[in-house]
């Protein structure tokens, strides 16, 4: 569709772009990225024929760009630029109708029914029909942008060039616009080439990305490859971290603010624990990176308060999440910053202890009751019933954990817990075999993300060793305490 070969060019004297080559296929949504001054806009202006090409060649459908007459080119390429002057108050329809300029023939440019039909159709698709008789000067930024998009589409182009189309648009318009463009590429075979400032939007919507650096191509590849942490860090000279989009298979980059690194070192230990009759809380001065299966704040996240709440054995609630949230609020905790769990165990039986290994430490808090202990290998014999968790394990790591380490920590902790149960000969009441846990156990791994970097937490790694020992000891002690209470 469009091919660029060894193109150099820019404003009059010096070349902004040097030796740029790439190809765009029909129906692609092609993103152009790069820091300020990397030549994105220059490239787009050269593609649209505004700036001359100093050397190299741009060809569209096998024909050189310079061989197209302005009108012919306008039938193939439409451009939606960032700014356009609106000195005079044309109506929306007059503005959109100008898009038909290149298609009109003859000295007087007669307006025929086909032109009218296309203009009406495009206005309907973009959703500007309702205000077609308004003056564009009276519209909001988002509405104006849509009117100019309609104008560009009225040209019936095969290629649409956009210069930061989401600039000045609020969140919903950004999404609406890009969803719309994506739809046109897949359904109408429109080729879209767009400059993006927002790397995440580009990663989310583009089929392919071109990263420019100082007027040269850094890489031309799929988003996942282009948006690599090290690459973006180098090109943009800034700290970012890549992570996966929660719903879509698209890479996302997060900025790392500078204060992050200057934070003082903080350790989670006994001093932060506060036990009452109704709940156990740990409040940390800074948010911790967490992975948990709590009632509230589950999954991956950042949290600074951790609450293990005592509930009655026969606690039943249709929406225990909402109930938990209102409980937290009532007691002065912010649900959004809290990992909350529930237990029927008496809270005095909690066991917490700090374990130190060379240059890092962990702090473990366990409450355990085994009245509904279960053998996981035979769990199909049990009926499903949500009852408050009875072994709640919290592991605070004073170190920086990788995502693998979080998962391995959970594995290691679970294995240690099973071993503790076995050694205490906890029996599944239904099957009569050795139990591996209870039906509603919860776990929390929370890391300060400062201090020593801990990449792995398998059972024989330093962290794994510490977790196994800590969880085994604490779980054993907690179960013993709870058993003692029953006997007395």
């Amino acid at each position: 569709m469009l091919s660029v070969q060894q193109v150099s060019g820019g404003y009059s004297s010096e070349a902004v772009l040097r030796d740029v080559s790439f190809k765009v296929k029909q129906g692609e949504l092609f993103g152009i990225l790069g820091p300020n001054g990397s030549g994105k806009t220059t490239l787009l202006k050269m593609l649209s024929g505004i700036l001359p090409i100093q050397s190299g060649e741009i060809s569209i459908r096998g024909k050189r760009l310079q061989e197209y007459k302005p009108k012919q080119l306008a039938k193939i390429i439409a451009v939606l630029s960032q700014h356009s002057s609106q000195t005079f108050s044309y109506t929306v329809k007059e503005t959109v109708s100008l898009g038909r300029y290149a298609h009109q023939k003859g000295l007087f440019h007669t307006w025929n029914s086909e032109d009218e039909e296309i203009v009406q159709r495009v206005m309907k698709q973009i959703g500007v029909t309702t205000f077609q008789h308004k003056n564009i000067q009276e519209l909001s930024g988002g509405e104006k942008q849509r009117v100019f998009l309609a104008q560009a589409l009225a040209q019936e182009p095969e290629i649409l060039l956009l210069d930061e189309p989401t600039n000045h648009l609020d969140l919903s318009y950004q999404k609406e616009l890009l969803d719309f463009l994506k739809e046109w590429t897949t359904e109408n075979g429109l080729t879209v080439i767009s400059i993006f400032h927002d790397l995440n939007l580009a990663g989310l919507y583009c089929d392919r990305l071109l990263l420019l650096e100082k007027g040269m191509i850094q890489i031309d590849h799929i988003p996942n490859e282009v948006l690599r942490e090290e690459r973006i860090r180098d090109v943009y000279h800034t700290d970012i971290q890549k992570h996966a989009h929660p719903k879509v298979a698209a890479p996302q980059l997060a900025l790392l603010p500078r204060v992050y690194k200057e934070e003082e070192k903080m350790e989670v230990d006994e001093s932060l624990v506060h036990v009452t009759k109704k709940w156990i809380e740990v409040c940390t001065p800074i948010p911790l990176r967490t992975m948990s299966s709590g009632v509230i704040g589950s999954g991956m996240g950042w949290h600074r308060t951790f609450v293990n709440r005592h509930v009655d054995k026969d606690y039943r609630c249709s929406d225990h999440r909402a109930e938990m949230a209102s409980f937290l609020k009532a007691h002065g905790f912010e649900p959004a910053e809290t990992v909350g769990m529930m237990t029927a165990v008496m809270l005095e039986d909690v066991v917490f202890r700090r374990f130190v290994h060379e240059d890092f430490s962990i702090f473990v808090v366990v409450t355990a009751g085994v009245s509904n202990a279960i053998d996981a290998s035979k769990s199909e014999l049990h009926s499903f019933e949500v009852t408050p968790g009875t072994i709640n394990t919290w592991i605070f790591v004073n170190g920086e954990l990788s995502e693998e380490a979080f998962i391995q920590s959970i594995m290691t902790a679970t294995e240690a817990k099973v071993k503790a149960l076995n050694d205490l000969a906890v029996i599944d009441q239904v099957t009569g075999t050795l139990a591996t846990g209870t039906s509603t156990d919860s776990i929390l791994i929370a890391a300060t993300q400062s201090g020593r970097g801990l990449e792995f937490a398998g059972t024989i790694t330093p962290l794994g060793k510490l977790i196994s020992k800590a969880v085994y000891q604490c779980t054993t002690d907690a179960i013993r305490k709870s058993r003692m209470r029953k006997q007395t």
Partner: protein
Amino acid sequence: MQRQFIQTFLNNRYLAYLLAGIFLILSILLGISIGTVSVPMLTILKIISAKLFGFISLDQIDPMYSSIVLDIRLPRVILSGLVGASLAIAGAAFQGLLRNPLADPYTLGVSSGASVGAVLTLFFQLSIPYVGSFTLPLLSILFSIVTIFFVLTFASKIERSMRVETIILTGIIFSSFLGAIISLMIALTGDELRQIIGWLLGSVSMRGWEYIKIILPFFVIGSALLMFNAKELNAMSFGEERAQHLGVNVQKRKLLILTAGSILTGAAVAVSGTIGFVGLVIPHFSRLLWGPDHRHLLPLSIITGSGFLIIADLISRTIISPTELPIGVITALIGAPVFAIILLQRKRMERSG
């Protein structure tokens, strides 16, 4: 909004033309009728139709009337009409092209450029072989074209984006400079001082049919060129880059439009001197009447522009009769406040938008 109201009221395009047409005809009739000797409307109609169709004989009409109408007032009205039309359509085109509601042959300095050409011709009694009486308009046009390109090049050197104010400021600088040159030439002549000064302030008096013959061909060529570029003007009022994206051959069209505008201005200045603000006020009112679409803005500007200048001329020669005011005084009295209002409106819009 005021404009919305006017436009819904006038949502029929024919009505806009009708109103403008009535205004023009009325001003023509008034322009011929009123003066030291008042000529009845009916007599005017009779004389004109007699001259045009010939089936009514002029015998029953007082020969004094027919002589006043045909030799003095009619040519004067037609000339002021043509000058007004030329300046108005040139102003509309400059405004659209430069995306600048304050552009006009006068504010851009084009009129002054044309004056220099005209004064040079008068001063040195120049006459280009073969063109004869067309030497004056041709030299005026040449100087207009040179001036507009100088002004625009200079403005783009100051600021790439060529803001409205920058262009106007540049126009004023050039106007002052060219005005000084004219003053210098006048000072050097001595004798013809009064004639040239009178001419400078703008006047359509005592010109006769000769001058109509001079301006007419240029008016037709210039207006036709602009009308054929009405769509391109629409596109270019959204910015030159966008116009190019829409398929307009910007360089070629821009050159055509600037040249056509200069032809119109040059010819108008050659026959009537510098008359300011017509090209500013008329397009502004035409836009209120029928929106910014140049396909209608240009013809409407022609009609209302000619009507406006005929009325302005009428006022200038009757208000302190028997002395005649230069017509430029009247247009400036109306035009300068309008200029101020547009400037205020723009600033208010920028602030709110």
